[in-house]
């Protein structure tokens, strides 16, 4: 493991894409920043610009309007980057058939590295998911 990879794991900057969420996963992601969970311990920060991001946290199902934008955003991330599907919505697609505005589960749109199911997943789960993935890598 080179020093660059090591540092990459130690300093993850997170960008949060809300592709038609119900807001709950998003709030839980923000919760990760706050004193009880404090992801800055692991060097994680929430960034505002996609160009600074290392991790994309995607929440919510992907609707038809958001689909293009999510793709566009994925193109704009400097690689290497990790795509995390937070919550059950972006992970699976069973019941979405029913909505007229559904555009497919997230992995049909962009490649996904980590799935964190739950409605919503607790902040601990989100952190654990990302950390787990990084340790495996």
């Amino acid at each position: 493991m080179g020093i660059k990879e090591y540092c990459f794991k130690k300093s993850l900057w997170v960008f949060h894409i809300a592709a038609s969420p119900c807001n709950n996963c998003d709030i839980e992601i923000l919760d990760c920043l706050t004193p009880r969970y404090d992801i800055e311990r692991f060097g994680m920060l929430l960034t505002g610009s996609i160009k600074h991001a290392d991790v994309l946290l995607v929440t919510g199902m992907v609707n038809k309007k958001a689909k293009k934008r999510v793709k566009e955003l994925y193109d704009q991330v400097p690689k290497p980057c990790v795509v995390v599907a937070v919550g059950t919505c972006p992970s699976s697609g069973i019941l979405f058939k029913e909505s007229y505005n559904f555009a497919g589960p997230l992995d049909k749109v962009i490649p996904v590295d980590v799935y964190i199911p739950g409605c919503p997943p607790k902040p601990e789960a989100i952190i654990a998911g990302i950390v787990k993935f990084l340790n495996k890598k």
Partner: protein
Amino acid sequence: MGCLLGLVPDKARGLKGWISFIFLCVVFYFSLIVFKMENSSLTLTYPVIGSLSKFFHFRIDPLSKLVVLFIGFFGMIISLYSLRFVDGGLDYKGYYSKFLWTLAASFGAVLSDNLITFTLFWGFLGLTLYRFLRGSDERSVAAAKKSFILIGASDSILIMGLGLLWLKTGHYMISGMKVTLSGEVSIIAFLSLLIASLAKAGAFPVHSWVPDYTQAAPGSVSAFLPASLDKLLGIYFLARICTDIFILTPWAKLLLLTIGSVTIITAVMMALVQHNYKKLLGYHAVSQVGYMVTGLGLGSPIGMAGGLFHMINHALYKSGLFLTAGAVEKKTGQVNIENLGGLSTVMPFTFLSALIFALSISGVPPFNGFVSKWIIYQGIIDFGKGFSLASHLWVIWLGSAVIGSALTLASFIKLIGGIYLGAKRSKFKNIKETHFLMSVPYIIIALLCVGFGIAGTSVILPELITPVTGPFRFIGLWESQTVGILILLGILLGVIIYLMGNIKKIKTANNFIGGEYPAEDIQYPSVEFYKTLTDIKPIGWIYQKAREKYFDVYDWGKKIVLWASHILSGLHTGVLTLYVVWTIISLGLIILLLL
């Protein structure tokens, strides 16, 4: 020298650009020769003019040599630029002949030792200035009229001052005049000469013709006259006033320094809110004069050196800026910053030169503007050790100079950002870089800017400036080469870091606008930068007044004249004798005044 002067008007009728360019190369060569010549003074003797020949007395000293050299240089460079610039559809009838006439007159003005001859050439320059702008639309006519009236008025004041000088000294030779500033006559003479030189250079109270002129004139003319020649001449004359004609008293220094500081700040504040880039440059042409006036007003060799060096530098980068502005205008047809954008990729050379000029004018090290400003600062610090009131106020001069350069930078960011950077407009897709004949002049000037900056203290100063001012000692050290090397080293280090990074994986991507597709209407051009400034109350009020032309001498003059003519029209009886009586009375008054 006489031959040279005799030749110019004759050849000027050649009219074609190439001829004049080649001719101007020769002229430049001659001016180089002049520069190499020993100091001397010579009287031109033509049998034809006979006894009048005593007026044609020329003098070559380091100051005039310096100015001659650069007049020759700019003449050559700008005529090269004009080759491509002028062939457009504009009305450039007699462009080259006017060009050469102007050049000849300025050579004459600089070299003549006799004030009468000087005034002759000087007035002639005002005329060509007017002739150059004989445009078709109303605005340029108005601008031309404005500059002509302002310059003409200052010329008449100059003549009055000359009369007073004659009264005081009894002769018209610049060399050996050395009037001490005591008594009303010499003070009025000083003031009137000062006004003339300031009007030509374009300093605060009489500056208002410059922005209007540059707004209306084509780029090459702006680069030629207000940016380079008029500055060289005005400051040359100011230097003459300060060193040869008068001996400065502390009060005169205070006046000059005040004018300098006020000019720096006011003009740059006006420049901040301009939309038309040519007008913006015009205001900067005014603002930078403030530095030179400050430098000369210090009255010390070091200040003088700073002022003169700044004059040269300014002539370099400002003419360069006007040349690039002209190129942009020719290619796009737009004069407003807000309509432009993203030209840097299509006009890389123009962009790079403009960037260098902009950094130079703002005094960013290691470009030339910084060196001369730095010398002026040192002059001011040195000056602060004196005991007069002006010396005690040195911090004000220093502060306004430093703040002025910060503001200059601010407004140039707007210019560069607005014209060259940002999103490219779709209508400018097909624009290409200018013809190399047009771009070569400003590339040369840009290289000179860098060169003067890096070799400033070690080569340029001892070669060009010190002969004029006499030796002086720097109180602070600016080793421009060392700094240049360090900057190179820093850039190298940056490049190494780039190489250490993942530089091979460069990729282009869309701009991040929150994931939305970039559309043409989504942008924030740099014109809008300084809107907030006008929102702050006292500043906004001043801007409001400035927009209403409260600070414009010309407008005041116009108002007064209109008012006066309104009163005088009551005296219009149509009887001839009455007019004659009026004339005689006024003439008598003038004579009384003079005596």
